[in-house]
């Protein structure tokens, strides 16, 4: 699976490096040093964006650590194993129609900053 080059370039505004990681039928985007919204601890961690449907969600953003956000979140998959690494993800559904990769990422990160 290939993603538009300009969309990949846009993602680099949010992290230090973007790499593709294929596992099974899905090509994930590994976002190194992803900057998290204000109020999150830590402020930076690695992210793994799954831009296609998985686990019943249209897209998912996995994180290398269980982040402490300003508001409590449902971490419904603690320790998902993808690409031989353990990842964390909270329940957050992005229902945008045909979002760009950056729109998708921002919508997932927004999940940290909303009270509900």
């Amino acid at each position, binding site marked *: 699976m290939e*993603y538009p*080059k300009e969309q*990949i370039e846009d993602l680099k505004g949010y992290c230090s*490096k*973007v*790499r*593709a*990681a*294929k*596992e*099974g*039928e899905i090509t994930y*985007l*590994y976002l190194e040093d992803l900057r998290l919204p204000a109020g999150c601890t830590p402020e930076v961690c690695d992210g793994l964006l799954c831009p296609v*449907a*998985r*686990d*019943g*969600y249209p897209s998912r953003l996995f994180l290398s650590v269980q982040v402490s956000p300003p508001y409590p979140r*449902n971490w*419904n*998959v*603690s*320790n*998902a*194993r993808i*690409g*031989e690494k*353990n990842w964390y993800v909270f*329940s957050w559904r992005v229902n945008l129609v045909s979002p760009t990769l950056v729109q998708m990422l921002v919508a997932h990160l927004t999940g940290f900053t909303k009270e509900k």
Partner: protein
Amino acid sequence: MSVAIRMTGGLHREMTSDLARPHPFAAERAGFVSGRMSSLSHESRLVLLTRYHSIPDDQYVDDRTVGARIGAEAITWAMQAAYYGRPAREGIFHVHMHPFTGRTGMSGVDRRELPRLMPGFQSVGRDAAHGIIILSLDHGAGWVWLPGSKEPVAASTVSVIGKPLGVFERGGRQVSRERFSRQSFLGRDSEERIARCTVGVAGLGGGGSHIIQQLAHIGFQRYVIYDGDVVEESNLNRLVGARSMDVPAETPKLHIARMMIYGLQPNANVRGFAGRWQDNPEPLRECQIVFGCVDSYQGRHELEVTCRRYLMHYIDIGMDVHGEAPPVIGGQVILSSPVSLCMRCMGFLTEAKLAEEAARYGGAGARPQVVWPNGVLASTAVGLAVDIVTGWTGQALPYAYLVYDGNKGTVKESVTLRHLNIPACPHFSESDVGDPVLVEL
């Protein structure tokens, strides 16, 4: 530092059938095989062979002083393959076959000639392992030049993950004939085959404890086992080996499993981890067969993915009780082998099941469990494993999906297999073998 080499049964067949073909003038054939290096525990390495490259007849040099001499064109091709294999750290291995049975090794000519290829391979594929593999009709040996090393490491094992399983070791292994006299129908060398195989068990509860007990009785000697729980009151209805006193003592299930194994196999090599396999994944890669005794679909999916990556047979068991008037006991035993049909192909793992589980936030909850279905499922799973190792049934099918009906007391092949029309697994490909490759964008 030790190095193990592993390949699928299909790749082994492809290599041996090509290498056995007569050449117009050379006394034997040679070939190249690509291999990816992965890490094991204790700084050991695992080389996963992926693709065989036959050498065309016209790329041999007519030299009657050696069995086979390949020309510059073949060597150039191999160096190019090493170059293009850099992103996946894929190296090149020279392979040929000695046409006899039994242990094999490098001849004087092999020792003199073949290592000369390695500096060239290393110069273009610096981060990969390269080497030499020599097969006999029923054995194999390998030598691996790790990145930056001028001297090879002799492979501790060369494994063929097929049916039957082949685990070729450098050293011999003595097994008591008398002890296994009643299971001699499994094959002439079945005890040795069983003793050489490394088995992994993830989850040592109701299903896993049965599996451990039977593996130890059968004669398995090498174990990698995982469970982070301790014995609780509610486990005593089904946890084989647990005693009442283990509840107040909070005995780890890992300890129960160890005692079961050592009681039957005092010389067994048991590597146990009081936690999830995901938190200590490298030892699991040393297995040739992995049993998944986990509660969740996600857990099953993750075990299958890692078994595909590191070329291991995966056997899954699970049971469920649902309904009320009367309750219905169901269960499954699934064999998923590298390259062959996976749990998605067989219709067991579906997006809908994974999504439903994720919507429940992953928790399986305290589901009904009882001892005898676990026993049936575990026995069936161990039967599949023994068939993989010994090949005693002569059935070559590399996958299985068996469905247990606990109310009728039957185990039957899943009806979904009858309607399958999938020639090859579309869910995993060769690019999924070995450590993940990250491609910078």
